[in-house]
């Protein structure tokens, strides 16, 4: 289970970011508060993704197991992809 959570961790963080942004925008439509809350959420999610990416890279340096190494590279790539996606997705909160 841990391995799956690790593999899908980036995408789970993306899902939290997206769902959170959508719920905030729906609950507080048309307000500046919603934009700031989304930016805070984005900051938190980006930080989580960056920390977990760094940890994945550290674990990759230490592993000798082929499958584990493969999965860690996949995990790291996933975090990288979602970091880009979350930055892009937060842009509506910044652009007026």
């Amino acid at each position, binding site marked *: 289970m841990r391995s799956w959570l690790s593999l899908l961790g980036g*995408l789970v963080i993306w899902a939290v970011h997206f769902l959170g942004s*959508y719920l905030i925008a729906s609950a507080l439509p048309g307000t500046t508060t919603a934009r700031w809350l989304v930016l805070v959420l984005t900051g938190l999610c980006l930080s989580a993704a960056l920390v977990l990416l760094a940890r994945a890279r550290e674990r990759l340096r230490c592993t000798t197991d082929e499958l584990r190494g493969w999965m860690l590279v*996949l995990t790291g790539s996933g975090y990288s992809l*979602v970091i880009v996606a979350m930055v892009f997705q937060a842009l509506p909160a910044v652009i007026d």
Partner: protein
Amino acid sequence: MSGETPFDPRLLDRFPADPRPDSDVAELRRIWAAPTGWERLTIVNNNYVGLWYVAAAFLFFLLAGILALVMRVQLALPLLGVLPQETYNQFFTMHGTVMMFLFAVPIMEALGVMLLPQMLAARDLPFPRLSAYAFWAYFIGGLSFFASLFVGLAPDGGWFMYPPLTSMAYSPGINADFWLLGIGFIEISAIAGAIEILVGILKTRAPGMTLARMPLFAWAMLVFAGMILIAFPAVILATLLLELERALNWPFFDPTRGGDPLLWQHLFWFFGHPEVYIIFLPAAGLVSMMVASLARTELVGYRLIVLALLATGFISFGVWAHHMFTTGMPRLSVGFFSAASMAVSLPAGIQVFSWIATLAIGKPRHNTPTLFVIGGVVTFVMGGLTGVMVAMVPFDWQAHDTHFIVAHLHYVLIGGAVMPVFAAFYFWFGMTSRRPLSERLGKWVFWLVFTGMHLTFLPMHLTGLMGMPRRVYTYLPGMGWEWPNLVSTMGAFVLGGGVLLFLVDLARKFRFSLEDGAGNVYGGGTLEWLPTGLYSARSIPVVRSRSPLWDDTGLADAVESGRYFLPRSVTGLRETLITSPMRAEPQYLQIMMGPSAWPFLAALFTAGFFLLLTVQAYSAALVCFPLAVLSVLRWLWDTDRPVRDRHADVGAGILLPTYMTGPISHGWWAIVCVLVVCLMIFAMAVFGYAFLYGIHPSYWTVPQDRWWSAPVVAMNGGAAILALYGRCLLAREASTRWIPTSAALFAAGSLVAAVTTDWLSWRAEGLDPQLTAQGAFSYALLALQGLLVAIAALMALYLAARTSRGLVTKPANTTFDVVVLFTLYTASQGAATGLLLRLFPGGT
């Protein structure tokens, strides 16, 4: 993460072992032999069920295609009178519905059923009777649904059936009910197939086939199955709610009583957008596999494609409201969906670039599957570009509901699914047919389909931007739409001609054979190309690379000589290996079920129940329902029977258990998948409840007697504790046969008491489901809980029946575990429902 299980991986070095005698093969053939004559209806083997599934899906493709041709004739010129307006509405609704629900998703499931066991070197999918049930339910339900066209009762509200058009006020006939009940039922069949595929991919792979060595089609189908479990519950709930509104006047979508038509759109598109990726991803998986073989080189970017599949699976759930840009949603929300809709093109692009790179560095030949692959990629990319265009909100405001969208969706679906499926037909044809399809005719088929497709849909971009709406049965002259529509119609017939030529070639060439097929015509390197029979490969190999047949040229002979796992039937029954999800380490021997009439009968009676409800033949429906339930129970009765020998030699002296319970067992995984579906239905219902409160809070009243939630939660909690206690008692040696089962029975009783209390308390408070959406949703949630409680009670009685026959083994039993898990979930949902309805909205 060294070993995933206690299995010592060094044991795999014993293979290839010594060759086995030919008498083992004769025994395998006898055990796996298919019934003949009328008994073919009892077949459960994936080779037959998969073939029938593919054939049925293709039949629906042809039927929906014919509808499209007639529609194109109607639109060829202005004010043509080929089809009256009402009939045209039924035609476009049926075209879309049949293509999306009866062709696009089922063909992918069908190819999965047919190809996956061989690709993974499993003897069959883990629940063969479930696949047979899923197929027959789909086939009988689908044909009956299509037949509604011939009696003028086909649904006519568009394939997404928006209320209020489809509410009783504007659709008083039973046309809409055909869609709601028919599609709701067919989606249950699709979920059954998805569970089968998910468990099969994670638990029945050949030893050594780690996640890093899994065929990309298996990765794609894994994501496909997971997406179905998350997405399909939304449309099941939506169809249920609309049917309740139509039948009982419960106002979920009626804004005059607190409901909202937008709720339907949210629920439908939460399913509807992932649906198109559910269609695309398996096709992409097929393309990834074919591209490598056709280019005669290793695929470029295997790991990136895996990432792309997983990312698409997630991100596609974040774009649903791009179908609703014109509904007046809050601007910021709309912005998020727009951004996500653009972001989702990233993983698709990764795959496309990978395919291009593979073709560029390889040596592709000019053959039919290569043409379809390249043609599909070109077409899909064009559709993807228009997709990014409509992801931009201001552009979508102009293009929404015009033929521009029709063009976009056909480009992505034909390019991203239909052409890859055609390529797959040519590529894998030799697995099941003595003769391959004709290369000469195949090239004609491709060019007719490709040219026809572009002739039909390219002009639609223009007509759409010139203002021609969707779903109109004619148009006035002088709008400038005449020439593009005429060209589209000609193109449609060119496309149809290509499909017809394919059918001719199919009729000439297809001769079913598993052991004597035309073979690996295009040089694939994965395990489905091992010599096979109905039992799949003679022995289950140890996999040491992604393309085992390319990397070990002696593998096929070694497998055929029985030098790997399971060279014979150990127990005299149908068997396969269950392996661990990540590293595919052998865990136990699964005894598989053989032919049975019960899945067919269960499907027949289930279809009968839903169809009779649709035509309002309630008495007959009430007869079908218990027959369907009894058929399912009778089918299950034969399962979960441990064999005499608790361990078996599966090859090279390796002993594995023959029975396993708990989180390792495939039965446990299946019930967890079912519970995920139940949880999603509940989550969507909670969303709907909260959404309607948010939209129309003035129709909401604060619940009075909140204290009722305490006994409801307590009774549900009691049920959960009793179920867990029963499980503990089963493990104790001192427990008699009936004590654990009694605990399970009492648990079910507690669930019944909880939901009855909840229901009666709301009745006492005077909540009327017809008066407000709050009332309707409250009773809908209670009805949902009631349904689960009824199932839990039935399961407990079934467990009691098995106990009475001494079939509940100690210290652990899969049936018992399944009942406990379901009871635990039902209790949790019951408690959550009791709290939600009384605590939300807050206030006094």
